[in-house]
């Protein structure tokens, strides 16, 4: 009795041209059609820029750089999803990047070396740990004012936007702090800040095993309860597609080589003979992207598999119902802002490592890019709706537009216009889509 039969209107063979039935077929099999659409948009943008730029967009070099440039915003966007889903906003993240980034820079450049000896191999880790704790504290502080005092998050974080920008300046009296600790620099990517060829393939392999394991476990669980299974062929296709994307991405990352002069220098340092036709050292997955992948996995897990995530969505869907269900809504909100703060610290670490410096203007306007990424990625500002992968796709779409426009020589003012229009159009399409889906 508990087994649901497939709706009779659906046929297993897909007729070409009947897009509506394809959409509902995918939805019936728990495939997010919205996400599929976003991937299509992203690919369209890539192809368009590829032709407009005379074939320079879809190249390992550009995609590698694109992935690194996306990381800092995407890391924070995953946290902004939870913030917005809980019916709040955080306008302070850009300034928090400034303060936390500046503190981390001061720690590794001026404060820790005298205590630990410069070049101490623990400096990077202690710096990062203190940064993360500071981010969490700032987040918890702002979150407590929002949850317990009841000041709207817009106001609290608008204040935070000014306060933390001020602290970013005060921390180093407006100086530029550089260079970063040698190990810390790796967090930003750069020529040596990536995983290398073998490591990247290993990560890709582990990811493939993970994808297959998730699909198999999902089937097993559904079978155990007697729920309707996805058609086997669809699961196989999904698994193959997932692995193909992962391995393809690794292949692209491994196809980008260390620039020649650096490769020669590396060869000299490591006594590697230079083969004919030049030395090609694959960079592989950059560390910031690896960090982003880790953040994505953790945040997806938190969102989908832990009670905390479910409570955040319940609060966003109906705060009163969440409270009546006995959920500690205030504590949950504080944790949301704490999570945001931790992600800000991680993103700030990536930013200063990549710049190899910290300036008091670090992270300026990041809040807007982060919010835009989350919203383009399908997070609803009225709360209760949003996904982590969506936000990352949103960040990737924005960065693709920006990088693409740079490639074809569009000036900064026009870039701003395009990004602004994209934001509004994306939300407009989303609104219409949701209205239609709700019918």
């Amino acid at each position, binding site marked *: 009795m508990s087994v649901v039969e497939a709706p009779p209107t659906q046929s297993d063979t897909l007729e070409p041209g009947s897009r509506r039935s394809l959409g509902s077929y995918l939805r019936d099999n728990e495939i997010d059609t919205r996400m599929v659409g976003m991937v299509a948009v992203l690919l369209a943008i890539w192809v368009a820029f590829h032709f407009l730029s005379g074939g320079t967009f879809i190249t390992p070099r550009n995609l590698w750089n694109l992935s690194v440039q996306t990381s800092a915003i995407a890391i924070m966007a995953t946290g902004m999803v939870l913030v917005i889903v809980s019916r709040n906003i955080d306008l302070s993240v850009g300034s928090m990047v400034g303060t936390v980034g500046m503190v981390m820079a001061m720690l590794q450049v001026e404060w820790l070396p005298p205590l630990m000896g410069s070049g101490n191999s623990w400096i990077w880790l202690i710096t990062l740990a203190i940064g993360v704790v500071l981010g969490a504290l700032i987040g918890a502080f702002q979150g407590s004012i929002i949850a317990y005092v009841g000041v709207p998050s817009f106001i609290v974080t608008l204040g935070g936007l000014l306060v933390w920008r001020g602290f970013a300046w005060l921390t180093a009296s407006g100086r530029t702090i550089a260079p970063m600790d040698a190990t810390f620099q790796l967090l930003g990517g750069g020529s040596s800040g990536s995983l290398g060829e073998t490591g990247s393939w290993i990560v890709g392999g582990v990811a493939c095993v993970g994808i297959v394991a998730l699909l198999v476990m999902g089937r097993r*669980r559904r079978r155990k*309860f007697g729920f309707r299974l996805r058609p086997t062929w669809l699961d196989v296709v999904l698994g193959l597609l997932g692995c193909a994307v992962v391995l393809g991405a690794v292949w692209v990352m491994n196809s980008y080589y260390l620039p020649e002069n650096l490769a020669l220098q590396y060869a000299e340092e490591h006594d590697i003979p230079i083969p004919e036709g030049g030395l090609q050292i694959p960079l592989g997955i950059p560390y910031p992207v690896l960090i982003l992948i880790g953040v994505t996995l953790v945040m997806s897990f938190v969102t989908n598999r*832990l009670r905390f995530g479910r409570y955040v*969505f319940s609060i966003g869907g109906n705060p*009163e*119902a*969440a409270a*009546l269900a*006995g959920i500690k809504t205030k504590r949950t909100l504080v944790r949301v802002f704490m999570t945001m703060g931790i992600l800000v610290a991680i993103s700030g670490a990536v930013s200063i490592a990549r710049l190899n410096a910290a300036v008091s203007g670090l992270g300026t306007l990041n809040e807007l890019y982060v919010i835009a990424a989350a919203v383009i990625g399908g997070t609803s500002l009225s709360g*209760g709706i949003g996904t982590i992968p969506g936000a990352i796709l949103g960040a990737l779409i924005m960065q693709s537009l920006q990088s693409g426009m740079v490639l074809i020589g569009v000036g900064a003012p026009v870039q701003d216009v395009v990004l602004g229009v994209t934001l509004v159009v994306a939300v407009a399409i989303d609104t219409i889509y949701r209205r239609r889906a709700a019918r």
Partner: protein
Amino acid sequence: MSGTTVNGTPLVEMRDMSVSFGGVHAVKDVTIDLRPGEILGLVGGNGAGKSTLIKTLAGAQKADSGEIFIDGNPVTITTPRDAKAYGIETIYQTLALADNQDAPSNMFLGRELRTRWGTLDDSAMEDATRKIMGRLNPRFQKFKEPVASLSGGQRQSVAIARAVHFNARILIMDEPTAALGPAETEQVRELMRQLKSEGIGIIMISHDIHDVFDLADRISVMLQGKLVGTVNKDDVTMDEVLAMIIIGKMPEEVTTKELEQLHG
């Protein structure tokens, strides 16, 4: 007063409950009780204080004064969690559903089933939801869709399923049939009779005097925050209860003329 115990200790006794909002007494010195296997109708006009009173029992509203006894023992209920720990489940008029989430998530909201690793066990929750829905509303099939996309009756059955699933001993239903069509209303009534026969005590708030007369064993009437009185349904007529609701007079106080004016 008919509140004296006939068959042992009352399941719930609320004694001298008072709640005020900024100097206005929403509930003033109200005493009601509920016995096992009984349906108590709580009626009164808009703003009579019914919802506020039951919210103090559900842990959603703090009382300024008064005592609550469960099985004769004094208890302190300050949060919804406290109430649920005593087996008190509430179906609010608004249903209190998270519209963006599916039926299983709503069923287990705040009481999620978890795997041994502490993660959410969505399959087990869906399974339990399918089982209870198979009993309450066999035609219900939308287990994976946000409850926002369900009909009024389906949403109501999710809210009821949530209350019933956790072995409530005391069920509070605020306007249980207000949003329902005739067939669904009958379904809910049937369910209430069934729960009653299982020994569950039900406090039912309703505007619909016919509903109350059909289901309730006793009727408590409130007017302007105060209890007018509690009567056995079998001892009174519908007009007498209407008189209690509208002019606040007990059957023995009300005159024939006043009763006639009710229909004027």
